[in-house]
Each structure stands twice: as C-alpha cells, then as structure tokens.
C-alpha cells in the first residue's frame, strides 16, 4: 500500500511539473487577477465587476483572468502576493476603496507588474486608478421620483456617509427639485454595504413615515422587494434599482434605476496594457463613455408600466419650457451622453441644507469637488451623521 501511495505522489508531482512547464511556454498572454471585497453573488458591486471581467475575457483570446472574492481589506497584501507569485499575474485589479494603500505598497514590491485600483486617488509609476460613477443616473431617477410622488416625501436608504453616497443623494435630490420643488428627501443610514435585513427595515420605516418613492445605495435588492410587496397589497411604492438589473424583483414597483457596465472599462484598460499604451492616468467613466446606464434592466431605460404616467406629468423648466417628465429625462440623458460640459446635475446655483451657496450660478462642480462632496443640498432633510 505504502509503495503505491509513494508512487502516486511522485507521479502527480511529475505531472504537475509538466503542466507548469507547458504553461510557462506561452509568453504572449496576459494574465489579470481581480480582487473583490464581496462575494461575486452579492448582486451589486462585486457582481458588476465580475460581469466586466467575464466580458473582457471573452473579448480577448490572449487574456486569462483569475479572481479572489470576499477579500477582507486587511488581508489584501497576502492575496496580492498570491496572485503575483503563485498565479503569475501580470496585472492586478483591486476593486475596493480600502485596498488603496496595499495596492500602492504592492506596486513598490513588484515594480515590473501593473496594478489598477478602483475608486481611489493614490497613483504611482505602475499603479493606476479607475472609477465609474452613477450620480448622473441618480439625477435622472430623481426627475422621475419628483414627477411620480404623491406624498412629496421621498426616501433614500444609504450604506455609509462617504462622499460617493452623498454625491448620489444630492444628485437624486437635485433631480427631484428640477421636477418637483415641494418634495423632500429623507435618508436612512444602515451602515452596511451588504445588509438585506437592515435595508428592508429601513425601507419599511421610510414607507411608514409616508414616503412613497425609494432609491438606495446598497448591494441587495431588499428595498425593491419591500416596494413590490407594498405595491401588491395595493399601496403603490415607486423604487429605483441600483447597480445591477434588479427590475425582476419588482416589476410593478421599479420605475428605472442605475446600471454600471465595467466591461467596456476593463476591455479598454487591458487593451491599452496589451498594446503598450497604458498610463497611470485616472480613468473616470460616466454616461458619455457608456459606463453609467439608465434603467432597471438591460432593455428598458424606463419600465414601460410607468412611461404613460411620466408622459402626462408636465414640468416647467428653464431650459426646455413646459415639458413632460419623460421627455425631460430623455433630453437630459442625451446631453449627459454628450459629456459633462453639455449638462451636469451639479451646475450652480446649488445651496446646501444649511443655506450656504456651495456652487455659484453658472459654475459646474469639478471632479475634485464631486469626489470630496460632504453636504446635503437644500431639499434633503436632516444632517449627515458624524
């Protein structure tokens, strides 16, 4: 018996050696490693990144990818080392803000490898950054929310009080204001990126307080399920899907939403690396680049069930005169696709909730302003928790 075991061991070692040899023979290939902060099945952030990874892998036959999911931020050094040393990755994508410093450090440790960090602001010779933001879509959702609400109380379930979320809430509130200056936004914080139960209770308490329209930034479809179940019981609640196509969770409740397509960005970045055109310059993609997409599923920007209601809701605007909410959304969406210089939600005058003028009339917030925004605009109730 023992002899056999020994033989099998040697045999498998030899086999392992062969496969490693065969692997090393191909050198034109690029291997990319992805590090996700959550499970790929989270139906939000990590899921969207993984769809992007798959798209890139299908696009290029010279590309091979590996991923590690549910990586704790404190554990990322070890995972980066593993991807470089064991998996022999040429480029590593780190897809959470908390991976920023470990990524910079890894760049120093492995000067001949490339690193791309998502959502951060630190760069070095071989470490670049990239991000896709959805605030424009929140603005468009806000227009629809403002047009549809009957109680003039609009809810928002939010994960953590950081600039990204404040930017989303403010853009949503500015959209609401454009359609309905009377409506106010009520925010509930759940302190979790991934908290289906917390999001559910937060949504329920917003509805109990009289909100009939809900948007959120969180990685589960819980808010939509709440909206759908109230709608089925006869109380129409309007919701907006976030990040992934969540409309199937609430066909009678989801009006529209925000979708993020990382695929295009990953294809471009990897193509640049392959052709040698890569630089460490920040890649910041919005509607113009096709990263931010309007809709609660892949086919309809607005759920057909609500199109008629939105076409009947007339809004008085400065830019287009009297116009239906539906047309306003479509016109603004077109402008956003042309670029932020054509139209951007954060164009002055914008006052914060304390009455201070934050963006002067005619001016547009810069990218840096947006990345550090930490005030509520004037139709958001309450204060940002410390």
């Amino acid at each position, binding site marked *: 018996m023992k002899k056999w075991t020994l033989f099998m061991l040697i045999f498998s070692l030899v086999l392992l050696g062969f496969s490693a040899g065969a692997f090393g023979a191909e050198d034109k290939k690029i291997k990319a490693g992805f590090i996700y902060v959550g*499970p790929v*099945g989270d139906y939000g952030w990590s899921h969207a990144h993984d769809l992007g990874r798959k798209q890139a892998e299908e696009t290029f036959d010279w590309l091979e990818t590996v991923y590690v999911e549910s990586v704790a931020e404190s554990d990322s050094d070890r995972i980066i080392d593993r991807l470089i040393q064991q998996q022999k990755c040429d480029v590593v994508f780190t897809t959470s803000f908390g991976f920023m410093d470990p990524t910079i450090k890894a760049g120093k440790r492995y000067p001949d490898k490339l690193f791309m960090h998502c959502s951060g602001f630190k760069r070095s010779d071989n470490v670049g950054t990239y991000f896709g933001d959805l605030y424009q879509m929140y603005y468009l959702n806000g227009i629809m929310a403002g047009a549809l609400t009957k109680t003039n109380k609009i809810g928002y379930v939010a994960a953590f009080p950081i600039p990204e979320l404040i930017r989303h809430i403010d853009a949503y509130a500015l959209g609401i204001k454009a359609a309905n200056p009377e409506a106010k936004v009520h925010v509930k914080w759940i302190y979790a990126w991934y908290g289906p*139960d917390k999001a559910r*209770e937060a949504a329920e308490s917003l509805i109990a307080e009289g909100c009939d329209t809900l948007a959120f930034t969180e990685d589960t479809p819980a808010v939509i399920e709440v909206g759908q179940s109230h709608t089925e019981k006869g109380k129409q609640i309007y919701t907006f899907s976030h990040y992934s196509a969540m409309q199937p969770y609430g066909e009678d409740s989801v009006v529209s939403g925000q979708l993020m397509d990382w695929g295009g960005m990953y294809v471009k970045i990897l193509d640049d690396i392959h052709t040698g055109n890569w630089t460490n310059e920040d890649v910041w993609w919005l509607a113009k680049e096709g990263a931010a997409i309007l809709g609660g599923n892949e086919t309809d920007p607005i759920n057909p069930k609500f199109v008629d209601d939105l076409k009947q809701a007339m809004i008085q605007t400065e830019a287009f005169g009297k116009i239906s909410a539906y047309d306003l959304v479509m016109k603004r969406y077109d402008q956003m696709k042309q670029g932020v210089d054509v139209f951007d939600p954060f164009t002055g005058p914008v006052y914060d909730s304390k009455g201070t003028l934050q963006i002067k009339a005619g001016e547009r917030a810069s990218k840096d302003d947006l990345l550090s925004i930490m005030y509520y605009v004037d139709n958001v109730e309450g204060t940002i*928790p410390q």
Partner: protein
Amino acid sequence: MEEIIISTLQRTMVAGTPLLLATTGEIICERSGILNLGVEGVMALGAVTAFIVTMTTGSPWLGVLSALAAGMVISIIHAFTSVTLQANQVVSGLALTMLGLGLAGMVGKPYVGKPLTIKMDDITIPVLSDIPYIGKVLFSQSPFFFMAIGLALVSWFFLQRTRLGIQIRSTGENPKATETQGVNVFLIRYMSVIIGGGFSALAGAHLSISYSKSWIEGMTAGRGWIAIALTIFALWNPGRAIWAAFLFGGIFVAQYLMQPLGISPNFLAMLPYIATLLILVLISLKDPRKLNAPAMLAAPYKRGER
C-alpha cells in the same frame, strides 16, 4: 402617526419570527445539556434548501419540509461529535456554523439573485383581523409567524408538562441520575439536537422564502448568534422566548425609526446586544441560581463513569 405605530408593530412581529423559531429550537437542545453554536450555519442551510426546493418544485410547503429535513440531517453531525464522541461542544458547534455557511454558499451559488415568484400568502384570520390596531398586527401575518408562536407554545407545554419533556430537562440537569431511571440519555440528546436543528432551519426558510423571497450568501446576518443569546435571555423557557424574540425584533425595527431623532445609528445598532448584557447582569446580580441554566450544559456525558 397611527400608521407608523401599526407598521412598526407589524415589522416587529416579522423581524422576531426567525428569532423565535431558532431560540425555541436552541432551548430544547440546551435543555438536554448540549450547547449548539451551529444555529447560524443550520439556519443558512435551511434558507438555501427552502429556496432551491421552492423554486424548482413551485411549492413553498415542500420547501419548508426540505429545509426542516436538511436542518435535522446536518445537526446529526453535532449530535454525533458531542454525544457519541463526547468532543468539545463549543468547537463542534462552531464547526457546524462554518460548515453550514460554506455549504449553503456553495450549493446556493447558481441561485443568487434569482427572484422567487412563488409567494406564500399571508394568513388572515377572519373577524379577529378586523380588530383595530391588534388585528392587523397579530392576525394578518405570514404562516411562519403563526408557526413560530404555535411551536413555542407547544414546546413550552412539552418541556414542562409531558413525560418526554421532563426527561429532556432532567438529562440536562443530571444525566447520570436520569440514566439510572432507565432513560436513554444518548437517545434523548440526539433527539433534542436534531429537533433544535430542524427549528433553526425553519427560521432560515422564513428568511429565504417569506421575508426576503431571495437567496443571497450571508442573509442570515448573525441571527443565529442572537438566538443563542436569546436562549439565555429567555432563561431556557420557550414561553419567555416569545416575549424575548419580539422584544429583540422590536429593537431591531426601532433602530431605523429613531434615526431622524439624531441618535447615532451605530449606537442604535448596538441596542439588542446591550439589552442582552443588561438582562444577564441584572439577573446574575439578583440571584445566579435564578438563571435557571441546565446544570450539565455543555458537559459531555460518559456512560458508566464516576
């Protein structure tokens, strides 16, 4: 205002339901002297089983039954290590939690993000549900709510008043004396662990096919651990567990209601745990014996040893 109160109470009942199911199960288990820290894992496994079976067969009740079976089967592992092998129950229970969470994540991977279109209708009891305020809160709820209350009451009666219940309790207090009375201690403990596991799995089924109507990894979100704390909070009495579970459900729901008052959300999220500590301290200060813990809890029983 009226709507806020009714909605809050209604949500309290929903949020307390899985806690009550899991706590009742853990009470039966601990009453027999076995500490089961695997509740969280069994709950996750119950959730994923119920979801997959409901989705493929179209019958939520079949889903519930399969979850029950899955929870009972996986609990045999804990019963085997802690009763037959007399291993450390803390280690075995923790292992069961990790095993259950991991297994559920693996089995459930293809089902993540798929909405469940088959719904379990709420049970509305005629006449009673028309009572103002209480009617909507207590008599128009998901079947799991009535199941949880029913099982807790039955378990209370079972443990206090029936022969088998008394055998379970005396096994937890003094297994050797119980064995001399001709009771099969091993069998009693196996049974209690398995029943407890089944209850935990029911709690999981509530989460996936009634509460969320979806399966996502990590959806149990620590409820199993709260159930273990609630077992102590309820002083190992299923009757008291009803109050305890809904009190905790209420605290969970109240967090979000209290946010506009300017209280830090972080502080509000700590409330259920602070409440547990407070109650434990208060009871222990008064009279530690009143804790009523099974005397031989977590102590392995070796047959024929002195």
